[in-house]
């Protein structure tokens, strides 16, 4: 990754009423910084769904503190980073980490449409990955999951990670989109 060309820092107060205004503000910044060679429509669609889910996550989990957003544009990619001091993601709790020594990947949700995996790159640093189900016909809906936040970001991004900093008690979601 080369030097950051443009950076936007934004504080979100975790109010649902400010969700759309905050989203539009960040999208406007991104729209003005997409290189001409990139597929702007695709980048803006992915940015919209990713930032929407990160804002929703802030409303749900960040508590009374603000959620900080940083949007960095590099010549080859866009990085969206969201940090808050709310409750840590359940996956960093010991009970939810892979049970077998040496294993670092765990299926965290699945239905016939999608499988979502967490991959522990260290104790408090998780990368998410998804796989499409192989069933392509119309499905029995009873088996479909109802929680899509992490899945939406994983499917939209080229890299999606979560880091919990034990010292500062901060949660950071980092999403990368390659141009």
């Amino acid at each position, binding site marked *: 990754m080369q030097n950051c060309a443009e950076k936007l820092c934004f504080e979100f107060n975790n109010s649902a009423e400010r*969700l759309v205004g905050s989203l539009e503000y960040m999208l406007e910044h991104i729209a003005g910084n997409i290189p001409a060679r990139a597929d702007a429509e695709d980048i803006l669609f992915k940015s919209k769904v990713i930032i929407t889910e990160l804002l929703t996550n802030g409303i749900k989990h960040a508590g009374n503190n603000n959620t900080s957003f940083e949007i960095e544009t590099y010549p080859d990619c866009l990085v969206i980073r969201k940090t808050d001091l709310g409750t840590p993601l359940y996956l960093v709790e010991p009970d939810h980490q892979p049970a077998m020594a040496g294993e670092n990947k765990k299926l965290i949700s699945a239905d016939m449409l999608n499988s979502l995996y967490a991959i522990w790159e260290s104790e408090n640093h998780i990368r998410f990955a998804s796989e499409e189900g192989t069933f392509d016909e119309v499905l029995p809906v009873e088996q*479909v999951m109802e*929680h899509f936040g992490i899945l939406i970001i994983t499917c939209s991004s080229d890299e999606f990670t979560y880091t919990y900093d034990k010292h500062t008690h901060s949660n950071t979601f980092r999403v990368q989109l390659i141009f």
Partner: protein
Amino acid sequence: MITVNNEGPKFVIADVTITEANLSNSDQFKTELVRLLDEHKKIIILDLQELKYVDSAFLGALVSSLKYAISLKLDIVLVGLRNDIRDLIKLIRLDKVFKIYNYAEEAQFAVNKF
């Protein structure tokens, strides 16, 4: 939030009248949709043309309502989706569980053939 626009022997066409469907109103959305299913006992053709912003909480409410509809041997059919909302639904493959049409008339025609 959901208004009945038209009703046929097999279906109810219902308009979603909000522009933002997210965490703050997804529970109410589900409550109203479930009530429509209970009151009318017909397939719901849900017109989403007013919707500009949705999040995962809204999609969860939609799937949960669809499960309830299926348990009643009914269905929820989606029409009038903006391109980006349709793309989001496709992204997580919910187009495999929802019947989606461009217009209510198209859905009406299909429902009458069910």
